[in-house]
């Protein structure tokens, strides 16, 4: 879960990292509250990256410009999200822009520090150097110094960057962040560093011990389409897609594999819908309700290979569910895994066909949705 720039900078400031002194506004009229000098930067506050390239940061030289810019920015969308707030900051003069981040790195089995002596929105093209230390207790300033020395010749800047890298790690572990990125990190005329932007991504799994992650996750859900909101509320994993074949599956890998096979068969999945986190009668009922109610969904593929999920129980649930179901959308079933033999028997008894393979299920699906 990505924090907005303003929330991220507040977190940096709370840990002693200097940021420009800004003003958060929720309506364009509030630009009038800006009492600091011009030129100023007005920045859309959204929970996604790529804002700079999408025109989400505007330099303004006087108040009228600022009001116009604020109106424009509030009307823009960034990765489908309208900014609910703008951040106004003094346009800070600086001599250089650096890139510094600490981020989770699977290869390192923990965290890495990333640094580039030239920051800015194109930084991902100029690959930063990486110090992969893994566990927080294995961070070594001297190892980072050895990596930075060849690429950062300004010793004073280098030492400040190293101290800041240590601080970003402290922040990441304290607030359960998977990424704490400052880009650009400005070098001021006096050699001090100032965080001109902040991208802090929090670990949703830590919501049980970080109340603000829990709150932000709830807010983020409200930005999802209604169908996805209902699925998530029912503890199903759902991502909305624009196809017409409803896919009810179990496990991230099998759900993606099912999507890929639908696509390979010329069909378009309407969703990623993983019921393995709630493989109960209520969970499957919700999945069917959502897909049955969605007009663009023409047919439903149930594709489950259960390990911890006992597919005989799934079969029993499907039997009851199909008996009471109103919708006439075709349903193709293929389940396998723990309790498979009992499952076959239950489905057969209910007059439901359990396809022996995904291939056979897909053939049936292609036939079912073929234009007549």
């Amino acid at each position: 879960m990505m924090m907005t720039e303003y929330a991220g900078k507040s977190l940096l400031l709370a840990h002693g990292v200097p940021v420009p002194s800004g003003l958060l506004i929720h309506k364009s009229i509030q630009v009038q509250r800006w009492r600091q000098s011009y030129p100023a930067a007005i920045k859309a506050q959204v929970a996604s990256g790529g804002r700079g390239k999408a025109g989400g940061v505007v330099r303004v030289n006087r108040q009228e410009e600022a009001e116009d810019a604020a109106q424009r920015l509030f009307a823009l969308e960034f990765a489908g999200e309208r900014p609910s707030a703008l951040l106004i900051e003094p346009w800070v003069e600086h001599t250089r822009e650096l890139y510094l981040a600490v981020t989770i790195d699977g290869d390192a089995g923990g965290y890495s520090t990333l640094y580039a002596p030239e920051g800015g929105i194109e930084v991902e093209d100029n690959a930063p150097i990486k110090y992969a230390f893994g566990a927080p207790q294995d961070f070594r300033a001297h190892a980072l110094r050895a990596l930075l020395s060849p690429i950062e010749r300004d010793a004073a800047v280098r030492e400040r960057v190293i101290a800041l890298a240590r601080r970003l790690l402290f922040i990441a572990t304290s607030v359960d962040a998977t990424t704490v990125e400052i880009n650009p990190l400005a070098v001021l005329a006096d050699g001090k560093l100032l965080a001109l932007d902040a991208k802090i991504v929090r670990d949703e799994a830590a919501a049980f011990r970080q109340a603000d992650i829990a709150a932000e996750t709830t807010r983020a859900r409200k930005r999802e389409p209604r169908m996805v909101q209902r699925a998530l509320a029912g503890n199903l994993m759902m991502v909305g897609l624009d196809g017409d074949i409803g896919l009810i599956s179990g496990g991230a890998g099998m759900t993606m594999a099912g999507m890929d096979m639908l696509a390979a068969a010329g069909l378009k999945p309407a969703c990623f819908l993983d019921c393995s986190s709630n493989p109960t009668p209520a969970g499957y009922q919700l999945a069917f309700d959502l897909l049955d109610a969605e007009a663009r969904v023409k047919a439903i593929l149930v594709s489950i290979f259960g390990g911890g999920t006992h597919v005989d129980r799934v079969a029993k649930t499907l039997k009851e569910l199909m008996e009471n179901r109103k919708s006439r959308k075709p349903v193709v079933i293929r389940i396998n895994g723990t309790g498979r033999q009992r499952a076959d028997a239950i489905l057969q008894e209910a007059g439901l066909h359990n396809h022996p393979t995904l291939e056979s299920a897909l053939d049936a699906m292609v036939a079912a949705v073929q234009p007549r």
Partner: protein
Amino acid sequence: MSVLIDGASRILIYGIAGNFGRFSARDLVASGSVVVAGVATGRDTTPIEGIPVFPDAHTACRSAGATAAIVYVPAPAALDAVLEVLDAGCKVVVYPGDGLPVQDAIALRAAARQRGATLIGPNTPGLISPGKAKLGFMPSHCYTPGPLGLISRSGSLSYEAGWRLTSAGLGQSCCIGIGGDPVKGLNAAEAIELLHADHETTAIMYLGEIGGSDEYALARYAMRTDAKPTAALIVGAAAPAGKKMGHAAALVGSALDSQATKVAALRAARVHVADTLRSLVDAARAALG
């Protein structure tokens, strides 16, 4: 020789008194694995499914000689429970749960390595050496002994793959679920090394997905002159960018995360890549030669 577990592994089920722990106990015993102990903290210690139950892992290991463990506790309790079984001396530990804070995963990975132990997980069904032992909850009927080493980021996909391979008569030396989270107790590169060193494994099949960089470890391995033949299936071709597909690590953030880029890198390294599940068995056959 075997990978991580075999018939001599003496298994501890931590959290045996819960519903899933009881199911797993029955399932493991039915699979022929040697389950020697259960742990139920703060509960009574009457045997479950005929397995002696202890109040803590230390007592379980000392009294019953457990050497490997699978831990069934919710994510907020996982750090403490896995540290307990590691401290008790278990050298192979599976933590299947999902939703573990990545920081706790980092701590557990470091703790396991410090003790010379191997953690499998989080977010995994565990591992199985067909015909020898199982430390997980994958459906046993999907697996049969043979020469193919299988590594998977996804549980469900590994069952499907195991079932297809087994149905096609392609047996497996060991199937390791490395899990779908970004920080893993055993990552792809390390799992590959284990299968590389295992004399019963003649080829390696890898089931990957979008996001993360584990797939590139396979590409690097495949380019080694001493590499065993490899095959792979990478899912998520149809997944949109910027959306997390169930697994914490399954998200296309940059180009390197995409299925297409990964497949291209693997093909360049001469890995036999299946486009979808349809060609999985063919790819495995090609690798097995």
